[in-house]
């Protein structure tokens, strides 16, 4: 039979009591004997007996000590573990009393776990909401026709949209607009400061604070700027500004349009005075002096004739001009004709149940059209053809003629009377199921076009021909750089609100807080000191621990020297790709501007930096920015690894490299590797720029020279 701890306790206590009772009895008995026999070794016997008794008592009390002291300590240890990990529970130890305590502790732990799970779920929900909001904001920003830039009070950009980048970009591979970049690369500081002063004054006066200004950008665009404050953390006066929003309108084009319209009016009024004066004078001579000779009369008539001809031509020209201006006022899109037809055919088939085939389509035709209304016209006419003439198929064709695009909606057979065509043209299209009160005529007027009915007897074909103004063929828009890498551009970062110009000394700043330009170069060879040259620079940026794959510098460079065959095999850049590319002297200023105010990061940075520095004397552009090297940092993190080549460490960090050995591809990979390194460095106690720099300097690789 096993005894429980409780029983053991009772038994041990009983044994102890028995032992002490025995001891007292033995002591009394011995004392009694010595009194009788005055024994000699009484003391020794007594000591022996007491020793034996102590040993017996110790043996009996040991389990007792275990029970009272060890079990609670065990419980305490397990409780501490459970404190650290809310999923853990304590095991019951010791007697029932301690078991009860353990149970209570487990109950507490379970409650805590449930609470923690609730909080985590709540946080996850909030984060999901936030993420959804962010996505909505990003989508909104992307769709906005207006340019939006949000800055903190230092003029650092923390949000911008694609439109803003288009409006503000200066071209030449440089990137004046980017998260964390200074707005003053684009606008004059004084101008914004002045506007902010105004806004601040109005805020304090409790007025509507936004202000308007018109300015030219450094790239020569004329912008109307609407500047409004973004509320900051509430201050005592309740009107603190945390930053500001700029809404930008590129009014260059509007300005030009207005200018053209003015010139038109000017040329009609002022330009008409001279010829009119000449005609009037000649006419008055003719009527005032009827006695003049035939020759003189002929001269005056000739004056009138030639001036009237001139005036007529001028009026006709003005009318053409004016028509162009009018067109510009409607929201006409410039659209590829083939795209319009591609949209029209399925729509006719679907809405009218009428098969629509595409015939000859001139792919090069671009036209100006209100495509929405025009598609309604095509559907409306098709439907009436089907309903009223039993037409069972229509065909679409597109060609260009002079200044116009000709779009034909053709069918076989049936001709129609002019009256019918007229009524179809003038009826509101609502009559055939299109939801618009507009008539075909109105839409065509709006598009500055014409339409008529025509028929080719020979081929039994009838068709409506639509004449629409041609637009300049637009060059296909270059895909957003880096667009392949994640669909949503990183166009905002509200954490930048808390940024301050009053930065600490760089060495003391946490690595995670710095802004980096991660870059790579491709070169003609490995010996910069021996005449090898840069042929490509690719760079991207890291702001607030995010790789901004849409803010890139990507530029080929004409090395002005032959390209060794061996190098072509590495980077895949062939001599013909470099024809017409700028020389390094033109590229470095733009690249230096791209890098402004950042820490440079490169893999084996010493190599790239050497190339840049060798150009300093010739270009006057100094790359005196702080530098971090992912090769050295890899050696800091994994000193026992054999290879620190970019593809090897990328694999080690689970980074997939797209476009290895293109400068931008390698820059992306380097940036991602660098971001993965940051937490590992922090685990090693390397948190600031200074600590990273010093650690890197100590590695073996830092001692290599180029």
């Amino acid at each position, binding site marked *: 039979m096993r005894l429980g701890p409780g029983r053991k306790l009772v038994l041990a206590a009983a044994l102890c009591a028995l032992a002490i009772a025995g001891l007292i009895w033995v002591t009394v008995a011995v004392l009694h004997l010595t009194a009788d026999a005055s024994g000699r070794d009484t003391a020794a016997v007594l000591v022996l007996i007491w020793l034996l008794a102590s040993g017996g008592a110790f043996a009996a009390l040991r389990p007792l000590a275990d029970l009272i002291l060890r079990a609670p300590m065990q419980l305490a240890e397990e409780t501490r573990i459970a404190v650290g990990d809310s999923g853990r529970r304590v095991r019951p130890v010791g007697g029932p009393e301690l078991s009860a305590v353990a149970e209570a502790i487990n109950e507490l732990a379970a409650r805590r776990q449930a609470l923690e799970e609730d909080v985590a779920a709540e946080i996850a929900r909030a984060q999901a909401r936030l993420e959804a909001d962010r996505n909505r904001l990003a989508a909104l920003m992307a769709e906005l026709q207006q340019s939006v830039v949000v800055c903190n009070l230092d003029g650092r950009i923390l949000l911008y949209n694609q439109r803003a980048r288009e409006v503000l970009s200066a071209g030449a591979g440089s990137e004046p607009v980017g998260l964390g970049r200074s707005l003053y690369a684009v606008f004059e500081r004084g101008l914004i400061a002045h506007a902010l002063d105004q806004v601040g004054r109005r805020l304090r006066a409790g007025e509507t604070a936004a202000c308007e200004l018109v300015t030219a950008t450094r790239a020569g665009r004329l912008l109307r700027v609407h500047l409004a404050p973004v509320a900051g953390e509430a201050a005592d006066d309740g009107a603190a500004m945390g930053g500001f929003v700029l809404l930008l309108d590129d009014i260059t084009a509007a300005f030009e349009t207005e200018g053209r319209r003015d010139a038109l009016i000017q040329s009609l*009024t*002022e330009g008409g*005075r*001279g*010829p*009119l*004066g*000449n*005609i*009037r*004078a*000649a006419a*008055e*001579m003719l009527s*005032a*002096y009827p006695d*003049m000779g035939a020759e*003189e009369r002929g*001269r*005056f008539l000739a*004056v009138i004739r*030639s*001036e009237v001809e001139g005036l007529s031509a001028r009026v006709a020209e003005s009318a053409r001009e004016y028509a162009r201006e009018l067109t510009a006022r409607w929201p006409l899109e410039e659209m590829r004709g083939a795209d319009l037809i591609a949209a029209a055919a399925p729509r006719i088939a679907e809405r009218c149940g009428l098969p629509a085939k595409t015939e000859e389509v001139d792919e090069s035709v671009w036209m100006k059209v209100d495509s929405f209304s025009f598609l309604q016209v095509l559907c409306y006419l098709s439907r009436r053809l089907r309903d009223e003439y039993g037409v069972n198929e229509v065909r679409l064709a597109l060609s260009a003629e002079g200044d116009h695009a000709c779009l034909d909606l053709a069918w076989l057979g049936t001709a129609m009377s002019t009256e019918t065509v007229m009524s179809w043209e003038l009826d509101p299209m609502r009559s055939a199921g299109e939801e618009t009160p507009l008539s075909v005529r109105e839409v065509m007027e709006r598009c500055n076009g014409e339409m008529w009915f025509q028929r080719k007897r020979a081929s039994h074909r009838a068709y409506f021909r639509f004449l629409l103004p041609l637009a300049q063929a637009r060059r296909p828009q270059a895909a957003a750089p880096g667009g392949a890498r994640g669909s949503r551009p990183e166009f905002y970062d509200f954490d930048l609100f808390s940024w301050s110009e009053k930065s600490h000394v760089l060495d003391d700043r946490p690595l995670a807080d710095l802004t980096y330009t991660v870059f790579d170069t491709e070169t003609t060879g490995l010996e910069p000191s021996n005449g090898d040259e840069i042929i490509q620079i690719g760079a991207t940026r890291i702001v607030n621990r995010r790789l901004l794959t849409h803010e890139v510098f990507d530029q080929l460079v004409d090395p002005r020297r032959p390209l060794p065959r061996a190098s072509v095999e590495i980077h895949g850049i062939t001599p013909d790709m470099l024809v017409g590319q700028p020389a390094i002297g033109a590229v470095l200023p733009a690249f230096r501007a791209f890098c402004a105010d950042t820490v440079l990061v490169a893999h084996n940075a010493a190599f790239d930096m050497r190339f840049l520095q060798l150009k300093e004397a010739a270009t006057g552009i100094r790359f005196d920015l702080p530098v971090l090297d992912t090769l050295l940092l890899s050696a800091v993190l994994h000193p026992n690894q054999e290879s620190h080549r970019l593809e090897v460490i990328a694999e080690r960090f689970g980074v997939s490299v797209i476009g290895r050995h293109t400068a931008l591809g390698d820059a992306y990979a380097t940036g991602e590797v660098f971001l993965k390194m940051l937490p590992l460095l922090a685990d090693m106690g390397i948190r600031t720029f200074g600590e990273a720099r010093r650690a890197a300097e100590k590695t073996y690789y830092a001692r290599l020279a180029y």
Partner: protein
Amino acid sequence: MTRKILIADDEQNIVISVEFLMKREGYAVSVAADGEEALTKIRAEKPDLVLLDVMMPKKNGFEICQEVRADAALAGVRILMLTARGRDTEVAKGLAIGADAYMTKPFSTRELVEKVRELLG
């Protein structure tokens, strides 16, 4: 004594009418087809009146007007400016730099004759 009038205008179509008109009105008429010729003829012929067009090749009407007014020997020359531009700022400028009268095209020939008479009266 016959009064002399110089017509300074590069536009043949107005010169034909004005020349005819002024001759019919009994004036001695000469014609200059650009600014430099006009100035030369003003200096050589010392006309009583110049009908001066503003927009002319080589020298415009304003310049000629200023040079004539700066030359004491030409103090008696009257200037009637004719222009195809109707901005009142231009009228003000012409009168300010010394034109005696200003007419904007298209003008009435009757008014022109009256104005000429008035200036030479």
